[in-house]
């Protein structure tokens, strides 16, 4: 069924692909990528580096703003998932695209061509068994998907893609949901597919796994390709090259630096003791973390996504119940015991996109004077406040009565920051505060964060190591749910050390 073609020509190539989403976050910028048959191509990058968007472009789910795709050296422009499937591009999504209440056979038969109209599921069982044996996948076609384990569901997804004659398989963070045993098994399946001449894209942020299975490695950071290497080369060069990869992924190079003055460290504002938190899948993802954040300091939390930092912050802000330990917030001189919060998802959690800019400026403070008088809102005061915030924080909004969704990413973030800073809270929790923003906005937001520590404490969560090193007085490195605290100041050497701790290489 598969065509034999010149092995030197990549099956699929991307050239200069750029995609920007509303809210001004650049997901991909000028990305080049070649995928060859019979190779495992690892796409490494932090959460939000643009890996998934890139692959959604390849599978026809998202259309790029600029750049082109080549299929066997010829220009190709997939507009729908169907067109990508017809060319043999199959994607196994991170969140499985399976219908839980349907049987395995029904899930695989969905949209599959060449099946009889009647009783298609019964017809396909034989082929499912055949592919199961060929790739060591082992699934029961008659089982209902909701009864299957995560590993089994993944194997259903893989069969689904293979049965559609996929020549290119895109696996989006396939190991993040698997247990160690299942991962070994998955690598064995990967090997078989590779030997059958499939081009495989393996998206991950786990460096160790990449070294085990990849032939080629491309690293994305902030939507751009920061490294492109052959795995054999890296193996030859030894640990130095691995370390280099780690840095290319988490970022060590300082894009900008701002002068910071000394602020006296004061009394503790936030103390966390032996905190334990369950993740979404019911496993403990924060295993006994203790630290305190003092007045006058920025405490950075860094870690590669999925090591418990998200759950940690959600427990601190009260969004997720802790299952053990204790979080206490103390008041600081001149502030209340409030916790201001700048969430990672600024459009949907930090703001209400359909409310006006002015309304968004009082979302967390509307009940206080002067915005409320008894049960009524004080509209003139609110308008005045919105306008003053906009001018003080350089929020470039053409119309303060326009919905907040029309703001660019940087302006929206300034609005949220302005609102949260003006709450006069003792603790500010800032989650990925500059993710996706341009250099100018980033610098501005950094300044505000540093200013905030004069009156209170700042808990900064960042996937960007250079940002954390630049702003923090101390850094807690999260790895597999455990935190290691590193004292500042953060020299080049120390930040390298932290990079290794984040990726589990030290």
């Amino acid at each position, binding site marked *: 069924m598969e065509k034999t073609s010149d092995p030197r020509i990549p099956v699929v190539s991307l050239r200069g692909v750029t995609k920007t989403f509303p809210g001004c976050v650049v997901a991909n910028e000028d990305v080049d990528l070649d995928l060859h048959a019979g190779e495992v191509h690892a796409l490494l990058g932090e959460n939000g580096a643009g890996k998934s968007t890139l692959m959604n472009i390849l599978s026809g789910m998202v259309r790029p703003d600029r750049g082109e795709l080549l299929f066997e050296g010829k220009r190709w422009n997939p507009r729908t998932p169907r067109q990508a499937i017809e060319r043999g591009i199959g994607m196994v999504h991170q969140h499985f695209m399976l219908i*839980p209440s349907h049987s395995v056979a029904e899930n695989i038969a969905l949209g599959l061509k060449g099946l009889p109209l009647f009783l298609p599921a019964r017809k396909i069982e034989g082929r499912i068994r055949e592919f199961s044996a060929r790739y060591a996948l082992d699934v029961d076609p008659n089982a209902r998907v909701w009864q299957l384990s995560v590993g089994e569901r993944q194997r259903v997804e893989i069969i689904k893609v293979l049965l559609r004659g996929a020549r290119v398989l895109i696996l989006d963070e396939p190991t993040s949901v698997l247990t160690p045993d299942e991962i070994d098994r998955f690598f064995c399946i990967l090997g078989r597919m590779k030997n059958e001449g499939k081009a495989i894209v393996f998206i991950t942020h786990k460096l160790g796994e990449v070294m085990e299975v990849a032939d080629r490695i491309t690293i994305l950071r902030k939507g751009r390709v920061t490294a492109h290497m052959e795995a054999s080369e890296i193996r030859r060069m030894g640990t130095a090259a691995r370390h280099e990869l780690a840095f290319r992924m988490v970022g060590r190079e300082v894009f900008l630096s701002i002068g910071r003055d000394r602020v006296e460290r004061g009394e503790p504002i936030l103390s966390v003791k032996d905190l334990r938190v369950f993740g979404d899948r019911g496993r403990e993802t924060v295993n006994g973390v203790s630290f305190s954040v003092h007045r006058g300091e920025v405490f950075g939390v860094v870690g590669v996504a999925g090591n418990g930092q998200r759950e940690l912050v959600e427990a601190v802000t009260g969004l997720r119940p802790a299952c053990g330990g204790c979080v206490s917030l103390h008041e600081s001189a001149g502030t209340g015991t409030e916790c201001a919060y700048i969430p990672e998802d600024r459009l949907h959690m930090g703001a209400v996109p359909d409310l006006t800019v002015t309304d968004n400026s009082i979302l967390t403070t509307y009940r206080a004077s002067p915005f409320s008088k008894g049960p009524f809102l004080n509209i003139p005061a609110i308008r005045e406040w919105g306008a003053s915030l906009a001018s003080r924080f350089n929020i470039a909004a053409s119309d303060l009565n326009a919905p907040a969704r029309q703001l660019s990413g940087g302006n929206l973030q300034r609005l949220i920051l302005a609102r949260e800073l003006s709450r006069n809270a003792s603790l500010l929790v800032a989650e990925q505060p500059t993710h996706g923003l341009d250099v100018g906005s980033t610098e501005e937001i950094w300044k505000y964060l540093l200013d905030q520590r004069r009156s209170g404490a700042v808990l900064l969560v960042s996937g960007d190591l250079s940002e954390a090193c630049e702003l923090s007085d101390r850094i807690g490195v999260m790895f597999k749910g455990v935190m290691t605290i590193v004292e500042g100041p953060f020299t080049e050497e120390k930040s390298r050390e932290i990079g290794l701790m984040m990726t589990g290489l030290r």
Partner: protein
Amino acid sequence: MGWQAAAAEILRRAFAFGTPLLLATLGEIYAERAGVLNLGVEGMMALGAFSGFFAASRTGNAWLGLAAAALAGAAASLIHAFFSITVRTKIQVVSGIALSFFGLGITGVLGQGLEGKPLETSLPIVHVPFLDRVPILGEALAEQNILVYAGILLAFVLWFFLFRSGWGIAVRSIGEDPAAADSLGVKVELVRYLCVILGGIMAGMGGGYLSIVYRPSWTEGMTGGMGWIVIALTIFSFWNPLVAIGGAYLFGALFYLSYKLQPFFPPELLTMLPYLATIVVLVIVSASGSLRRKMGVPAALGLPYDREGG
């Protein structure tokens, strides 16, 4: 009259009265299985009833009347399909209810001169040989209008398509998780349109049955809230065409009994039963997740789908 004859009579009436309910419910099952909640059934049935009567009386051909009823229902359903699928309104309830009131209102205006005129023609009554020798059930089913048999046949056909065909898998998948179906190249919007239109055709025919067969004439508001019973019935039958057969005739029997037992029993209590039964089903369904799966509540019911997020 012996109890057997009485039971056969109840069943006979249940079949006759349950048929429009069954037809419209089958259509609504398809729309909802594809994830579109269409509360416009009452309006589509009213339009079907009016158009069916109008076309049948003008042409003198009851079959043309039935076709007109189906066509009117389909056209009306397009309004709802456009708002819920193309415009992607997040509140499908509103456009459905609007469609209901639109259908009731416009037929009231258009039908003013036709009120009370009897229809000279009707669809044929079929006599099934030997069936009347089977006691009670056979007697009740032996001599009915052709649409009664068509309804039962359609229920089986539509059940088979929904649960045993590739199209059915696509329809049910779209109602569960449109993103998953889309990722496999299934045309989500097209399938949803077709299912809503099928819902319109079936509701239109249900209405046409009322004005051509059941009571061959036109009266304003002759659907009498049947469309709302259909919505309830769709849930009551767990979105399954075969269960809908039982449900429709059960509700049909209740309706007949509420007339018959009027001297002894407040009819309101009996006409309330379909809704009460539906609430009970809803409570049971919401109570447990695994039950939810077994009962077939479409997970994406009432939710618009947009590929690039949102």
